[in-house]
């Protein structure tokens, strides 16, 4: 089996690290070799953040390069567009439609591009865009958007059973938030 590549992108502080933890747990449980690579430090202060998740028989590089991602999961629309070059032409983008203005936009030094989902589709990308933040709110907390997104990601892996995901949630999420996160997962799926 060729190595498969999933990128999780977003804005520092949005909870991308928990998403990659859950995903890594699921994939390891399926018996794959797995590498998860994330950048800590400066970018966690509201900067653009990316996590690379790779799995297969034997994974070498810890990072995913341009044109290599099978799936990009984005917590924010502009970030999906920023990392567009990384998706394979036949790959899948799953993106939250939430827009978080970066500082250059807030202070009027740059513009937030319009209609990004449509433009990415026009460029040939498969884009699954939805207001996942609203679904997280429905589950009980905006913070659960990471797990809502994992729920949607699970749709694209029919070969992995729901129990594997639930088991990963149990292992990675604090007990008192487990029910909320299970609900968030189900809403995303």
């Amino acid at each position, binding site marked *: 089996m060729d190595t498969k590549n999933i990128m999780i992108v977003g804005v520092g502080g949005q909870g991308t690290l928990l998403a990659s933890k859950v995903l890594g747990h699921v994939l390891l449980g399926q018996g794959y070799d*797995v590498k*998860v690579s994330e950048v800590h430090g400066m*970018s966690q202060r509201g900067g*653009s953040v990316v996590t690379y998740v790779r799995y297969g028989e034997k*994974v070498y590089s810890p990072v995913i390069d341009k044109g290599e991602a099978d799936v990009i999961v984005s917590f924010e629309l502009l970030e999906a567009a920023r990392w567009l070059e990384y998706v394979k032409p036949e790959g899948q983008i799953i993106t939250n439609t939430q827009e978080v203005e970066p500082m250059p936009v807030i202070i009027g030094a*740059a513009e937030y591009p319009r209609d*990004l989902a449509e*433009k990415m589709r026009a460029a*040939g990308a498969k884009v699954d865009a939805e207001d996942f933040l609203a679904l997280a709110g429905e589950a009980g907390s905006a913070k659960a958007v990471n797990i809502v997104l994992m729920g949607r990601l699970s749709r694209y892996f029919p070969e992995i059973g729901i129990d594997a995901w639930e088991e990963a949630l149990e292992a990675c999420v604090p007990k008192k938030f487990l029910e909320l996160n299970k609900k968030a997962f189900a809403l995303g799926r």
Partner: protein
Amino acid sequence: MKELMLGNKAVARGLYEAACAVISSYPGTPSTEITEEAALYDEIYCEWAPNEKVALEVAHGASLGGLRSACAMKHVGLNVAADPLFTISYQGLNAGLVICVADDPGMHSSQNEQDSRHYARAAKVPMLEPADSEEARLFTIKAYELSEKFNTPVFVKMCTRVAHSQSVVEPGQRVCPPRAPYVKDQGKVMMTVNSRNAHVRVEERTRALTAYAEDCELNRVEMGDTALGIITSSTSYQYAKEVFGDKASILKLGMTWPLPEKLLRDFAGKVDRVVVLEELDPIIEDHCRKLGIAVSGKELFPICGEFSQNLVRACMGQEEPKTLSIADAIPPRPPVMCAGCPHRGIFYTLKKQKCMVYGDIGCYTLGAVAPLNAMDLNVCMGASCSGLHGFNLAMGAEGERHSVGVIGDSTFIHSGITGITDIAYNMTNSTIIILDNSITGMTGHQQNPTTGKNLRGEPAGKVDLEALCRAVGFRRVRVVDPYNLARVDAVLKEELAAAEPSVIISRRPCVMIKGTVHKAPLKVNTEKCAGCKSCMRIGCPAIAVRDKKAVIDTTLCVGCGVCTQMCRFDALESGEV
């Protein structure tokens, strides 16, 4: 049982399994989690030291006392620890001593991209370079074996991609060697004849380690197609495998100092063409050339920045994957100070008073980005104090009236105390602002000697910053609340005008410290708001003006009230009920 483990956590696991008992470190991305994860084992004493020099000396002291010890730091930390490093290399040990150093090719969180391998060679200290988490665990254990066998500290060199990647690890058991008793040995006093003898021993040790490198398990050959041979190490090995698989033969060096000779020659003899794939400086490459082995290296690959599989593909003339793109310019998303960050009020005032700001390293370095743009430069930890003194020596009274050094609490303890001592002793009329946010923010919120808590969060000694500044000779020491803009403005004016040096301590905890109580987010009174954007000048990410009205992002705002002081129409109202 197999588990996914962060590279740094795997180093900590290795330290635990090797029965390391004392760790003294100073935080620094991407090395910090080594010590934080090790602290989760009750069997290991872990502390944050004031800086890396102290950390290494503490770890060495513990080794002399008979316990396996370690310290962890980022690459630039090794500059600070270099002084003890070179002589500890001569002096030797009692129990094993491992120095974990993490480089940051690509400078994800660093001010430079120096290559730590130079230190291994310069200080004649062996260096092991793991390429994934399991190797990080195993090499750390191996490092103790080598340390004790060869009586030398041993480096475990990480880089961002190994330190901050999770890969599969199979943890082992902790094995405790018998404790080495302390025996007084006059030969350990490093002067004249002892040092001369020690240097001779070090050269002999290097010869023995070179012989060890020839056939040790740390260095391995993976033969594939023999048209191309790649000599590589660390994460570069992973890129080589990713791109070439078994279409090339690979010599993977797990020990990058000292380097073998025969192993390299033999490998080169088995392949048609040799390429050295190494990030940053051409260290393995230069060594090969010195041995007369024909290789290509930096004529193909860059010295600057980090590698990736596409970079290797491009440099080796291979096709890169196809990509999609859109025409729109994507605005950058640089990191910013958090909403409610106590540093913000200081930088706003410095900008307003048009000060020359000699900055330093920490979250407050973000005072340099738009819209504040309030920092002129920074160099290394502590330079804000000493550098400002030098600047004022050149600029005279004109400089002194308009310049400040700005330094965080952790950075001040690390290297600022000597700098302000120089100001007080040699008397420039310099003004230093200590940003006391009760934490080491940038590296992920570690305790430090000013916070009154130790690494585990337990009560500990606490530096009295005011008393310390007075003790080194400052008579003018002021404390301000950075949320009070008018007060900050007045105090800064007074201290810049004063006829002697001053320290201003800006005191307010970082809003991201767990347990900090926040106020309710502000409310915008849309009737009063004139859409003038005055509030935007402080650059808080929680506030924006849309359709001519201020809007507060209630998920971010902590109600600090700094923006309300900017508004002439009282349109930003407290959300407290």
